[in-house]
Every structure is written in structure tokens, then in C-alpha cells.
């Protein structure tokens, strides 16, 4: 509770800044725990964005995002938290996320998934296929 500069008039303040700070700290903790995965993900998305920006549709979206207050605020926080360092000294990914997505979508619809799962089960590799644990 804060006063509004005038005695006797309490003002209720919602703790949105705390939520944002917690989110940033959480993201920084994730980066410390999984730096390689975080770098790979960020680089891949930035490369995707650069490629998309060379298309007419991408240019329209870029102009739209550039005028967004949400993006301006996010950029400020991104830079202040030092997340830009994730892009230092790395190579551009050879395959973009949308390429992976298209490949996954095509193969998901054309592959006999039941047969695939049974085959992997017979090979004793079902845990590796379905879990996120270490290989």
C-alpha cells in the first residue's frame, strides 16, 4: 500500500513489476541451466525472422511489429537483461524452425505412426522416443 503524496489517502498498487521481475529471473535461470539449448532456440528464431523479413509478407509483419508498444517494451527488457549476448559468436542455423515444422507436418501425415511406434518398441527404444530424459 502506498500513499498518493497526500496523507490519509492510501493507494492500492498491483504488483505487476514483481511478476515481470520474476519472469526475467526465471528466464535467466533457464539460460544458466540450459545455455546451449537457449542459444540454439534464440538463434534459430532470429534466423527465421531475418529470412521471413525478406518476403513481402514478412516485411508487412516487420512493419507491424516495429510499431508495436509490446515489442518496444520487450526489446528494452531484452537488452537490459543481456539476452542479446545469446547471439554472440554463433553460426546461423542451417535449417530454420519453419523448415523443421514443414518436415514434421509432412511426415506426420504421411507416416504410419502406429507401425513406427511398434517398431521402436520392438527395438527397445520406446523410452528414447517418448521421453525427454537423457538419451
Amino acid at each position, binding site marked *: 500500500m502506498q500513499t498518493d503524496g497526500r496523507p490519509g489517502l492510501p493507494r492500492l498498487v498491483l504488483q505487476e513489476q514483481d511478476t515481470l521481475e520474476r519472469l526475467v529471473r526465471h528466464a535467466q535461470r533457464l539460460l544458466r541451466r540450459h545455455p546451449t539449448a537457449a542459444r540454439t532456440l534464440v538463434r534459430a528464431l*532470429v534466423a*527465421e*525472422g531475418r529470412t521471413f523479413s525478406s518476403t513481402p509478407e514478412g516485411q508487412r509483419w516487420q512493419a507491424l*511489429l516495429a510499431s508495436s508498444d509490446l*515489442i518496444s517494451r520487450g526489446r528494452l527488457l531484452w537488452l537490459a537483461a543481456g539476452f542479446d549476448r545469446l547471439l554472440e559468436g554463433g553460426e546461423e542455423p542451417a535449417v530454420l524452425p519453419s523448415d523443421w*515444422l514443414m518436415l514434421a507436418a509432412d511426415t506426420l501425415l504421411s507416416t504410419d505412426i502406429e507401425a513406427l511406434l511398434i517398431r521402436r518398441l520392438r527395438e527397445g527404444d520406446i523410452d528414447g522416443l517418448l521421453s525427454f530424459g537423457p538419451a
Partner: protein
Amino acid sequence: MDSYPSALHRQRSAQERDTFLYLALGAVSVALRLLECVSEDLDTDPRVGPSADGVQMDGPPRDLLR
């Protein structure tokens, strides 16, 4: 004061370095592609989305495990 071309160049250079904007643009690109894939699969217009009555399809829902 900058001339118009140099101001434009400066603005473009700043945009080139704006990795957060490209990150957001990349996320939009992936989301649009995903929307395209799903819309294509369900035969709906990605700009319109499913109708209020539900997704219009030619046949029964596809069993992905078959």
C-alpha cells in the same frame, strides 16, 4: 543534421541489429506456418479459422494413428 539517405541508412542499420524484432518476427513466421499446416489439414482458411459451427471437413476426422 543527417541527409535523408544517411538517416534512412542509419534506420536500416539499427533495424538490422534489432535482434529482438527478428526474434518476434521469427516466432510469428513459425506460428503462421503452423497455422497454414493445420488449416491445410482441416481444409479451412487460415485467415478465417474454424467456423462457429465447428471445423468444416469433407469427411470424418482423420485417425492419425491409422
